[in-house]
């Protein structure tokens, strides 16, 4: 009876975060069914390992970490569809720190919702080609809008490392966007 009450209490607390957990799982899997499975696996794992949750630790980042790990495992076991692997992008600078070459003028994002949706879809597809460590950070910061400190706690990275990975991920994705909107870099 006590165990059941404890589990119900735990389940109630977890349900507060189910939107975020599902959203993270979906951002990795890009598939509703798989995302739901990932959340279920994560919740089971959370229940089994609930005693590892320290008193001082917040429930939400702890759950986010478990979902991220589950999604990571799922992606690794999945036969990945071939994606264009994005390469590390380095702008060229001369010895005085000025850019070598020219960037084409940036065309601002279209106002039309439909065109924006198309760009978002393109960006999400491109994100699948990011190196795993960059993609995880990009999903959690730019899609989930978690604070960099939180992301560091979830992924076990320093804030500096989160920033570096995020910047590189954005620079890689920028190439894709520029290609689509404004010609070559």
């Amino acid at each position, binding site marked *: 009876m006590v165990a059941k009450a404890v*589990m119900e209490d735990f389940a109630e607390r977890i349900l507060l975060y*189910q939107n975020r957990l599902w*959203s993270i799982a979906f951002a990795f899997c890009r598939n509703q069914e798989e995302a739901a499975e990932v959340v279920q696996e994560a919740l089971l794992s959370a229940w089994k390992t609930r005693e590892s949750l320290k008193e001082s630790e917040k429930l939400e980042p702890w759950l986010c970490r478990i979902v991220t790990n589950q999604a990571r495992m799922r992606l690794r076991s999945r036969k990945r569809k071939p994606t264009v692997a994005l390469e590390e992008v380095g*702008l060229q600078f001369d010895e005085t720190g000025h850019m070598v070459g020219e960037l*084409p003028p*940036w065309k601002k994002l279209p106002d039309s919702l439909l065109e924006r949706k198309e760009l*978002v879809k393109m960006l999400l597809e491109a994100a699948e080609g990011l190196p795993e460590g960059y993609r995880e950070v990009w999903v959690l910061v730019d899609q989930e809008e978690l604070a960099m400190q939180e992301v560091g706690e979830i992924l076990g990275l320093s804030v500096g490392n989160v920033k570096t990975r995020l910047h590189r991920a954005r620079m890689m994705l920028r190439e894709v966007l520029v290609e689509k909107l404004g010609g070559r870099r």
Partner: protein
Amino acid sequence: MTCQEVEARLLAWYAEELDPATIRAFVKHLRQCDCCTSLVGSYGGVVELGKLGKEELPVEVGEKLRDWLAAKTQRG
């Protein structure tokens, strides 16, 4: 500020972490450099579109998850 320094501060610019003096230098550079204006704009485009890419939990999936969790709770 140089182009290289602008690139190194892009993340802080969008995170609004730059101090006022750096913001002034950053903006001053952008006024004089088309390449960096393009870089800042396209980087911001990625940040903006990333936020739009977030998917909310569909109601029916949420209900399934709740039912699943309730069933697990019942079983103990």
